[in-house]
């Protein structure tokens, strides 16, 4: 186990060209020992490049990779003590479950009794103890994926387990079991787990720290709650949560107030001086409330549609070019023609050039 640091890492696949293209733009990140991380972003955002840099499959064109303050930038994968779990379970089908789990230790010439102790311990935590003698081939997809994971866990020297969309081939019912198992393992072994996915729900369910990437840049790193409540960029506001955050162009009126079309909205962001060009206001549809009458921070809008999702209602309303989505309780009475929608000041996020102020 180790603290992993990426110092001023950047990667270009053509670094010597006059205008190199960067798959990863310069960034520094540090991964605490024992953390549960997710790397999240749409395809092409650079998350796989980042994973490959950590595992050593790619040497970054710029910057340094440190494991416990030791420079491993040019160290090959085998010497980095990284375990990997891929989308599809990689197991030795003809070997028994026991032999599969023992394999990484055998290769490193551990004594038989040491191997036996470790394999049995890991098998128990993964609920594989009853299958140790079975051929790995005959197991279910989630059990196979647990074996892949177990091969990482038997090694006490592993710096981190990197997982690339590990639940892709797992049935929905089994996903639940595996997710819980991953969290338990992280709690028990304090192994750093790094989980790569394009699925927001998957990332937010698994990780206590999420690194959101877009177009080769880290756009936000934080807890699921931070990403949801205080998205650092408009992209994160759109990408996290369903429905996406409502976003509107606005102008700063004074320190704590913006104009949104014909409306005046008080906010808690200090809008003095600089950074007030290309302003946007963002608000989650969950935080918009239906009011009986006009009042501060209230927008009077035409009701376009009210959708009944059973557990909640989604109001779509419009005032000039402002289209507002508000998520309310099913019991909420919504007028059919016009509605007063309140934007509570504490839930309004203000963005300048798409970055949170």
């Amino acid at each position, binding site marked *: 186990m180790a603290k992993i640091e990426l110092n001023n890492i950047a990667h270009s696949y053509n670094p010597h060209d006059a205008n190199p293209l960067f798959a990863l733009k310069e960034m520094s990140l540090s991964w605490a020992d024992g953390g549960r991380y997710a790397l999240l972003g749409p395809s092409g955002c650079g998350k796989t490049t980042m994973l490959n840099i950590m595992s050593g499959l790619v040497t970054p064109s710029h910057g340094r990779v440190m494991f416990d303050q030791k420079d491993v930038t040019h160290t090959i994968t085998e010497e980095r003590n990284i375990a990997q779990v891929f989308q599809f379970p990689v197991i030795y089908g003809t070997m028994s479950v026991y032999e599969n789990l023992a394999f990484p230790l055998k290769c490193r010439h551990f004594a038989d009794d040491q191997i036996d102790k470790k394999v049995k311990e890991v098998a128990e935590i993964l609920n594989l103890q009853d299958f140790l003698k079975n051929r790995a081939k005959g197991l279910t997809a989630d059990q196979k994926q647990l074996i892949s994971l177990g091969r990482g866990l038997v090694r006490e020297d592993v710096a981190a387990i990197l997982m690339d969309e590990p639940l892709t081939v797992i049935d929905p019912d089994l996903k639940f079991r595996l*997710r819980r198992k991953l969290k338990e393992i992280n709690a028990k072994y304090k192994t750093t787990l790094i989980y790569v996915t394009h699925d*927001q729900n998957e990332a937010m369910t698994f990780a206590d720290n999420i690194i959101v990437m877009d177009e080769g840049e880290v756009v936000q790193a934080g807890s699921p709650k931070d990403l949801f409540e205080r998205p650092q960029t408009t992209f994160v506001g759109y990408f996290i949560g369903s429905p996406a955050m409502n976003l509107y162009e606005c102008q700063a009126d004074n320190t704590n107030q913006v104009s949104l079309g014909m409306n005046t909205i008080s906010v808690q962001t200090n809008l003095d001086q600089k950074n007030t060009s290309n302003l946007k206001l963002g608000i989650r549809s969950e935080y918009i409330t239906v009011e009986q009458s006009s009042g501060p921070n209230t927008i009077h809008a035409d009701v376009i549609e009210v959708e009944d999702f059973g557990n909640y209602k989604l109001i779509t309303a419009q005032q000039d070019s402002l289209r507002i989505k508000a998520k309310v309780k099913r019991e909420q009475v919504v007028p059919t023609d016009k509605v007063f929608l309140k934007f509570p000041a504490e839930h309004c996020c203000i963005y300048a050039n798409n970055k949170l102020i």
Partner: protein
Amino acid sequence: MSLNLGNIIFKPTEQYHLNDITLNFEPGKMYTILGRTLSGKTTLLKTIAGLLSPDSGNIQFEGKDFLAIPVWQRNVAMVYQQFINYPHLNVKQNIEFPLKQRKMDPNLIEKEVSDAIQKVGLKGFEERKIQELSGGQQQRVALARSLAKKAKILLLDEPLVNLDYKLREGLREEFKKLFIGSEASQSIFVYASTDPLEAMQLNGDIIVIDEGKILQTGSAKDVFENPANAKVAEITNDPAMNLNKGKIDNNKLILNNEIQFNLPSNLQSMPSGDYLVGIRATDLYLDDQGFDFQVDISEISGSETFLHLHHQDTKCVATIEGVKSYEVDEHVKINFDLSKIYLFKESGELHYSPYQN
């Protein structure tokens, strides 16, 4: 003209794939077949399309024996889970292909194709190759092709399931607009899904299927409010409705002999005895005065947190608004909104719904 299925049976193995299915479909209406994986949704659609022949039963369309009409003459369009397109043709050629096969007037083809491209939002992409498109765009091409055919029956088999969640969110909304209020509304639309929210949003009639058998049909609202039995209550809710063994005894409502409530006023008239007690995840809430539950895992879904909980033998899922973090095995206090309790007989049949009359 309506489509009628009568007593359709399909039993290729020991198990029924379709078990005595009788259904009526009216033009201009949207039907959602809601069921879990392997419940018979795809088999049912394929039977309507003519890709499978049932062992017995009949299908009438516009008063004619549909089973006697070969697939290619049925005027049915189908959109699949996988994005099926002709890889060597561009977007426009993909969409016009079935019309050219039919030797339609070229001017008319031009018009229909351009209409369909407009509807699915692919204007400007006409000359693109299929491989140059994202998954969402590829599914739009498949959809445009089926719309341009102006088929009288349009079958959609989980068309969004293979798209990532942001695309799904956007397309789902567009789907509804495509079908409702368009000139194509003289067609019959049948949409298969595993997702209760999708079924609610499409807001047509819901047909609940399980193990090849129809469990309930009705409007989205009615099926949601009054599920015919406990199985329907599970299938039509995500998370599935919480069901626990319970009883009414001596003016108390008791779950699993563990959790005890004073009988709420709405249940006063219910006879004493054993029931299956149902409550939706959204009708459980955090409450300092509530019962002690232990967290099995918390999952994030869109903008909600699903807490999987247990209290001895009582298992349930609670939906908490917003994105929250809970650790495995953490203790929380949970209460039940008793005005939302459902009672099912031990056989599973609905006994009491909070929305009854």
